């Protein structure tokens, strides 16, 4: 009896926390009925691959949001890194390592500036990162003079487009990197002191300070980590599309933020988990993919996308609310 009770409690808690999974399942079921191709292996793989980059970014974004902030410049950072990486891979006679180090450094620089602005003079994250968006875009334009830069480097191209194995289930490297990032993010958030601090800071900054959390350091690290994820996405996107361009991933931050919130991360900070965000990312992917597969016209796609973002979040809040 006792045991049963705790079992059902655990069950309840699980569904409370992960009610979004049910929403996702319902969505997939509907799409599968409407268009059976939707659940074909090749389409599932393709769908996940499409959201992998947003997913990688969402891993960083969730850190920032749990920490109580937001970053609008992440998309521009991806574009910047994509340009810088393609440029250096070309310029340095394809010295890959150097190109990667330089482009990641470029990304981290943006993150550092964001972090310092937000912790030091306490600029609201929305504004600091809005400013950074302009700066990163401008830098990207300067670096490439507005022209896409072809990527010739085999490794970068491989990262972006290779699939391991063969057949329908052949696994794109991109998906593996996404899952790897998710796993690392999970460990960072749940198993390290740093993760605990991130939650604490988002939960109550003043209390975290009193508990000896170095608020500034932690917060800067969070923005650095987001930039690291953005830089990874930036390098991968160059490989995926075969060129570094200022338009690469420039709006991904919006999808990443939406995925986080759909996945249960609270914009007020302090709440969120990796599994939820991964499901949130998949919902965004299934949505986009489903609309395309069903041949919905571009105008209606916009409307549907808006509606489904809202419906997913409403359904999730309702679900959680009803258990109160």
């Amino acid at each position, binding site marked *: 009896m006792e045991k049963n009770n705790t079992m059902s409690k655990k069950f309840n808690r699980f569904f409370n926390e992960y009610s979004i999974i049910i929403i996702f399942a319902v969505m997939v079921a509907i799409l599968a009925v409407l*268009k059976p*191709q939707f659940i*074909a292996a*090749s*389409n599932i793989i*393709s*769908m996940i*691959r*499409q959201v992998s980059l947003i997913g990688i970014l969402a891993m960083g974004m969730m850190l920032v949001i749990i920490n109580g902030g937001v970053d609008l410049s992440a998309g521009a950072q991806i574009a910047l890194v994509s340009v810088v990486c393609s440029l250096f891979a070309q310029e340095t006679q394809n010295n890959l390592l150097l190109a990667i180090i330089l482009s990641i450094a470029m990304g981290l620089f943006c993150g550092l500036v964001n972090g310092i602005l937000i912790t030091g003079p306490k600029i609201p994250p929305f504004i600091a990162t809005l400013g950074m968006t302009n700066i990163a*875009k401008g830098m990207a*334009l300067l670096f490439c*003079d*507005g*022209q*896409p830069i*072809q990527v010739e480097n085999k490794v970068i191209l491989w990262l972006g*487009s290779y699939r391991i194995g063969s057949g329908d289930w052949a696994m794109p490297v991109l998906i593996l990197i996404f899952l790897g990032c998710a796993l690392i993010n999970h460990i960072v958030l749940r198993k390290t002191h740093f993760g605990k601090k991130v939650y604490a800071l988002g939960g109550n900054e003043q209390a975290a300070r009193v508990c000896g959390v170095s608020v500034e350091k932690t917060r800067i690290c969070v923005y650095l980590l987001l930039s690291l994820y953005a830089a990874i996405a930036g390098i991968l*996107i160059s490989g*995926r*599309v*075969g*060129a570094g*361009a*200022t*338009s*690469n*991933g420039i709006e991904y931050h919006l999808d990443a933020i939406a995925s986080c919130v759909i996945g249960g991360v609270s914009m007020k900070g302090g709440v969120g988990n990796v599994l939820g965000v991964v499901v949130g990312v998949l919902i965004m992917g299934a949505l*986009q*993919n489903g609309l*395309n*597969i*069903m*041949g919905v*016209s*571009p*105008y209606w*796609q*916009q409307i549907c996308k808006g509606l489904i973002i809202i419906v997913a979040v409403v359904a999730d809040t309702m679900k959680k609310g009803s258990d109160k």
Partner: protein
Amino acid sequence: KEESAATPEASEESAATSADEKDSVETMKITVSIASFDNTFASFTMSRMKLFNEEHPELEITYLDAANDAATQVTQIEQAVINGTQAVICLAVDAKQTQPIISACHDANVPLIAFNRVFEGCDTFVGANNADAGRLVAERVGELLNGSGKIALVQGIMGQANTYERTDAITATLKEKYPDIEIVLDGAADWKRDKALELVETWLQSGTEFDAIIALNDDAGLGCQQALAADGKESIPVISINGDPSGINGVNDGILDSTAFQAPFTQADAALEIAMDYIQGGTPTDVFKVDYELITKDNVADYMQFTSLEK
């Protein structure tokens, strides 16, 4: 007719401007307002203009980015006129939203050159016509498919002139000349490579067959091709528009079937030359039309010179 429109203040203003410039009589102030810099064609022509500027140091060119907002463009040009520019070259955000620009220029007697996108009321139009591009690629598809088949259309940002003008011409041409060619898939890639890639990947999954893709710009075309290649469907031809360096290279490498080339260098040079002519009191032509030319495997060698800036 422009003389009659000139107001007393405007002539005062131009008097003030010329007084300003006694010491450097030669300088010619030209304003170039571009719908959005965030676009391969625009940045390429702009680079070309800078090159032109090096050869003609007497030009003082100001480049303005309207960031795809018509109201911003109107204001920028109004301000440029107020601040004494002598000629305006305008790649309009939208042809239908240019009335205030026209009045601003005409009231101050500043020549207005419509660049790349024609609008009524300009003094000179330099550029190619989106409708021609649409017609050209539609005809190419018609030839490739021998007049019947299914195609997919990858558009740019919905609501922008480049998108709907090109799309309209494509559909009109197909309807008129190749009624058996059907557009079975239609999506927006916002001019971006990554979006086009995703779009085509999904289309390939959807099971809808298609025999060719028309992309409204080269970047999107290259993205489409990448998705096709990954699925082993390189044989499906991709036809795009613009003739950007990456597009020309794409045709050369056999990645793209063809692209409609709109000679950005010629357009850039011509716009500046005509502006100079106006300022020096000449009466340049009303229309300097650059015809779109279809670059295919057969003639790509002639166009390789346009993949880099140097003359």
